[in-house]
């Protein structure tokens, strides 16, 4: 357990781990936010979540290739992905709303394979990344280093989350989305065009993922087959936070980032992902246990 000794000898390392993890967690939270929305409103588990993130990354890559500042990638990727999401709705998603979960998982899985292979054809299988040219922030005599790209990603992720939350809260479409999530039939009776609501929800999800992807390509790397880990992480965050609990999604996302990074340090990088899954199992067991206490009354 040399790693724990390092931690005891230099506790400032923990600050570094937690801080970097938190910043990164904001991006997981963003993708998970979209997934929770689609899941809650449309009862669809969007397996193509990671591929939307991927597409956002490629949009940013193309922009940077044109000599534009990669930061433009965040709004542009969101717009492009919004259009893609909107376009996908009448073609495919419309047909799976209201069907059982298995159908929607299969269909969105199909979308994810399609996007992977298209990206491979268009951009090649190479690892791609965009350099923001931003430096790093040094704290504690340079013993804690945070890159400005990550700080920026955190800020942007929080901002996008806030905009989304405000939109759901205060706009007409936001109210319609919430009404549809509560009871689609009642919403229809009251004159809500649920088809439009579904299309908007799916498109907003794609847009949020696109923004996340733009951030991913600025701090990490992308290639056509990197989508799945983002889907899995989003799924996990949503499962842990619960549907319709958007602040919970943010907290779970940030916590996941910090836990993952610290576990990678303590247990070794090979157990980083394993730890995350174990954590999910533990949380599910704990939640089940808590719920079962309440259930006793009903028995």
């Amino acid at each position, binding site marked *: 357990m040399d*790693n724990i000794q*390092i931690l005891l*000898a*230099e506790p400032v*390392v923990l600050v*570094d*781990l937690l801080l*970097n993890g938190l910043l*990164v967690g904001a991006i997981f939270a963003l993708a998970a936010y979209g997934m929770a929305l689609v899941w809650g409103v449309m009862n669809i588990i969007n397996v193509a979540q990671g591929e939307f993130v991927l597409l956002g990354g490629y949009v940013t890559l193309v922009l940077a290739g044109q000599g534009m500042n990669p930061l433009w990638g965040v709004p542009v990727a969101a717009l492009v992905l919004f259009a893609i999401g909107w376009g996908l709705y009448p073609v495919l998603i419309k047909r799976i709303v209201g069907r059982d979960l298995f159908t929607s998982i299969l269909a969105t899985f199909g979308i994810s394979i399609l996007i992977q*292979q298209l990206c*491979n*054809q268009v951009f*090649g*299988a*190479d*690892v791609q*990344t965009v*350099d923001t040219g931003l430096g*790093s922030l*040094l704290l504690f005599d*340079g*013993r804690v*280093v945070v*890159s400005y*790209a990550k700080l920026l990603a955190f800020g942007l992720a929080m901002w996008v989350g806030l905009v989304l939350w405000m939109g759901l809260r205060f706009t007409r479409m936001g109210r319609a989305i919430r009404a549809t999530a509560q009871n689609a039939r009642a919403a229809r009776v009251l004159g809500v065009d649920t088809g439009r609501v579904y299309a908007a929800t799916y498109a907003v999800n794609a847009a949020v993922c696109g923004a996340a992807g733009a951030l*991913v390509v600025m701090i*990490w*790397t992308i*290639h*056509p*087959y*990197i989508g*799945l*880990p983002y889907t899995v992480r989003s799924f996990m965050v949503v499962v842990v936070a619960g549907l319709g609990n958007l602040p919970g999604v943010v907290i779970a996302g940030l916590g996941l980032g910090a836990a993952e*990074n*610290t576990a*990678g*340090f303590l247990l*070794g*990088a*090979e157990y*980083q*992902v394993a730890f995350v899954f174990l954590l999910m199992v533990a949380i599910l067991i704990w939640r089940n246990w808590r719920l079962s206490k309440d259930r006793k009354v009903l028995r």
Partner: protein
Amino acid sequence: MQNFKSIIAGCLVASASLGLAPATQAADEIVLGAAISTTGKYSTNGKHTQNGYDLAVKRINEAGGVKVGDTVYKLRIIYYDDESTPARGAQLADRLINQDGVKFLLGPYSSGLTKAIAPVTEKHKIPMVEGNGASRSLFTQGYKYLFAVLSTSEQYLSSAIDLAAESAKAAGKDPKTLKVAMAFENDPFSQDVRAGVVDDAKRHGMKIVIDDKLPKDLSDMSATLTKVRALRPDVLVISGHARGAATAVRQIAEMKIDVPIVAMTHCDSADVIGKFKDKAEFTLCASQWDRSLTYRDNLFGTAEEYAQLFEKEYGYKPPYQAAESSAAVMTFVDAFTRAKSLDTGKVRDALAATEFQTFYGNIKFDETGKNIAKPMVLYQVLGGEYKVVAPTKWASEKLVYPRPKWSER
């Protein structure tokens, strides 16, 4: 059921009449077969491999062809797309051998695909010369018909350890005091590279302080790098394909990690110079080949002349994946000429006795079929270019040691 059978039978007849029947060999032709990844995750390197094969075939045919005994043959290659999946690769090898009647196979791209195909060629006693499967485990199975022109994976970064020891001595330090940090992806290739590094570090008596296995879907190695900052090793070696190289170069710069020697694999396929500019400076990179090396042959001339021809033909600089593929074709041709026969057994024996120089390097196989005559090359990124710094015999530049600290750049 009866209907189903007749449909199958109908399909078979139809496919036969559509020309899917065995490809017939023209009398004055030697047909080589290859499963290549033109789609899927290896498609980029698959393309380099194919271009390397094609360029060699073109050049050989232009130069008159292959003289086997008294007959002169032209070369031709049948390609199939293995979709970057091992199972498909094995099927295609079977198809090449049993349906197309191919008697000589060129290797696919990647160790994984080669591993899937080798048992098939071995079973049919079909010689395969490959230039893109470096995994050590390919050469511990007792294969008799597999020959690899490239350096195997455990040699990839061991020269970096030697270089660290040399440099430490020159700086008046005992190599035994050096601390080594390692981060390798958890896949067969990278773990082979790791095994080579561990052996060499042991030989020099160095201490391994970090030994991290990076996950397959690696995108973040900040946990490992935080450890590096705390433990201050003298050498940091990393291998995790292009993903690993890109992630490492970016995060070492972002986190301002200072280590005297940083060495990794796949810098060129990750294009770290193009992507990260001066952040990639002073990084050491393992490579199979470089155009500045002084090897030469009668077909292409020098390594530089090969590189120029390749650029003219395909419009980009030849990566080593292309060079080693061309060398694989040349090795076959050399064996055909010496065997004076197209009998697979005789060609196999001729291959085993290969000893010649190509623009890519010297080629001589040991009894397991791997090339033991060509060392790995180590680049250092200097002034935005890859410069060969090791092995010192062919080096064009001197190693900059230690890497300047980030605060002093």
